[in-house]
């Protein structure tokens, strides 16, 4: 055991592309100097800006994309605000990937219902694009997307492409419309009753802010989707990513470490948590 191989050691990474997506979200395409990230959909990395600090960020690209990986970062705290100042050509430090991925293999052969609210599209996109690239392995695919307003929509070019695909049913809604908005207005829960699904063979994958889960899950249960077929990705402050620092532990009788036992959970695993 040599301290030089400590699990705290970083992987050097270069930002090869970056784009301000909305006022608060910036997208980064990142290349590691030591090869592939080798992640699975639903995992996260720790981004370290030396001298500032470290933050856990969901990986928003699919592992089927080779050569680099992508992060979408909301300026919410000290490190993420500083990260927004970075651009193409800048270097960052990475640890990871960490976390239990979405149960992709158990989803093979099943129908998929994706429900993304706000920034939840970022982690979910790693899975959606994986499914798009392995479309044959899955049944019917429905994507439901909700954002605050049309200008808050992330990945709008890509979403435009999903909506045109014949092998995907796509619907989106905004909380507040703007004059030129032609789509739905209302909460994301309003889209669920209209989905035509076979509950026993459907996996619903839901990612969004904590407040969204309760209402979306209630709608999914009304549709008779089994609890173990509802997959969530929970937000907590993963400070170490190694199941040790304690910050991300979920208030649940099983005391899951969100960073190691999650961040993806099935609803039946975490339904007793005080907050999702």
């Amino acid at each position: 055991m040599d301290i030089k191989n400590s699990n705290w050691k970083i992987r050097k990474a270069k930002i090869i592309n970056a784009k301000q997506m909305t006022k608060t979200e910036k997208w980064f395409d990142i290349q590691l100097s030591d090869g592939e990230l080798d992640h699975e959909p639903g995992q996260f990395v720790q981004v370290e800006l030396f001298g500032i600090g470290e933050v856990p960020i969901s990986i928003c690209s699919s592992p089927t994309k080779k050569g680099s990986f992508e992060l979408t970062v909301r300026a919410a705290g000290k490190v993420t605000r500083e990260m927004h100042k970075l651009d193409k050509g800048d270097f960052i430090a990475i640890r990871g990937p960490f976390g239990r991925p979405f149960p992709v293999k158990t989803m093979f052969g099943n129908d998929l219902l994706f429900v993304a609210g706000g920034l939840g599209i970022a982690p979910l996109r790693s899975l959606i694009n994986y499914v798009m690239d392995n479309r044959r392995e899955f049944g019917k695919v429905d994507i439901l997307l909700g954002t605050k307003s049309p200008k808050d929509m992330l990945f709008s070019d890509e979403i435009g492409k999903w909506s045109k695909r014949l092998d995907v049913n796509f619907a989106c809604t905004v909380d507040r419309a703007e004059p030129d908005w032609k789509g739905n207005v209302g909460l994301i829960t309003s889209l669920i009753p209209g989905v035509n699904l076979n509950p026993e063979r459907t996996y619903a994958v839901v990612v969004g802010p904590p407040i969204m889960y309760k209402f979306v899950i209630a709608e999914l249960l009304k549709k008779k989707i089994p609890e173990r077929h509802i997959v969530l990705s929970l937000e907590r402050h993963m400070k170490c990513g190694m199941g040790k620092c304690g910050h991300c532990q979920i208030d649940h009788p099983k005391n899951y470490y969100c960073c190691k036992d999650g961040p993806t959970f099935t609803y039946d695993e975490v339904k007793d948590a005080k907050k999702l």
Partner: protein
Amino acid sequence: MKYHVLEKENIDCFIKSLSKKMKVYAPVKKGNNNYAFEEVKSSKEISMDYIPTILPPKKYFMPQKEKMLDFDLSAKEPVDTPSLDVEEIALFGVHTCDLAGIQCLNIVFNERPRDYNFLLRKEKVFIIGLECNKYCDSYASCALVNSHLPNGGFDLFFTDIGDRYIINVNTQKGEDFIESIGLPKANERDLSGVDKIRDEKRKIFKNEIDVEPQKIPEMFEKVYNSKLWEKVGEKCLSCGNCTNVCPTCYCFDMEDMINLDLKTGARVRTWDSCQFETFATVAGGENFREERSLRQRHRVYRKFKFPVDRFNRFFCTGCGRCSRTCMAGINLKEILKEVAEEAKF
């Protein structure tokens, strides 16, 4: 098992021989019935009869502030060097509750991804245990969790049988040291002295809660949503004293510290506490454990339920430090009694 004998009058010789090889840390009296592990040079400084020290020996395995990486900001690309500055030390006089605490930390940090800092540091510590012949005070609950008797985790272990110490040798490292100072082997009479001490202890150290240890996790399953946590929460000041002094609490925070040259710095690990208000807060502002009652419940479940599910052992060593140090008078033994009562055990 090998046993050797050290006449009490030779204890100073023992400490001095040890301190010639490495720094020796042992319990030292601090006044007002407080004790602390500090560096000692002779046996006169050591308090052989002490109640649990203010901080447990975890401070030597996981320092309050610990540098994990050095970094250099002046380069265009990030440059980091994991580092560990550690010397060989001896811990003398560690009670069985604290030996159990070190074993708990050992399990946690051995779990993958492993914590190299802890594991490499622990290799440098020579551990000499010391048996408690009497019960320290009303805060302790070591008999409940069976940590009043030695269960490994030491190189050498001292038992005071009156006129002499009987030293149980548990490792080659321990054996080598004993050989280097040439201590005689224990005879039958010495060993029966140890047995006599243990028999006496069985009379004094009684299960404090009167619940079978195997049933404790089941008992906690029944009170997860109990109102009793609100009562504890109402008292709690969220100061974090209980977790700081706990021999098995290891939650931490990471911090980047920049040196005065503004070019170099270090990532530093510091002790943190699940009792602090913002411990489970995320950058977006959501606090996932906002209520003090839930934070206190979390602390207690992390001693009696969660580690049993995960590691098949309690992470309470019965040392009583959390209750002894609590400014608001929260008493773990009373909580356990209430839990037992409510769960009808």
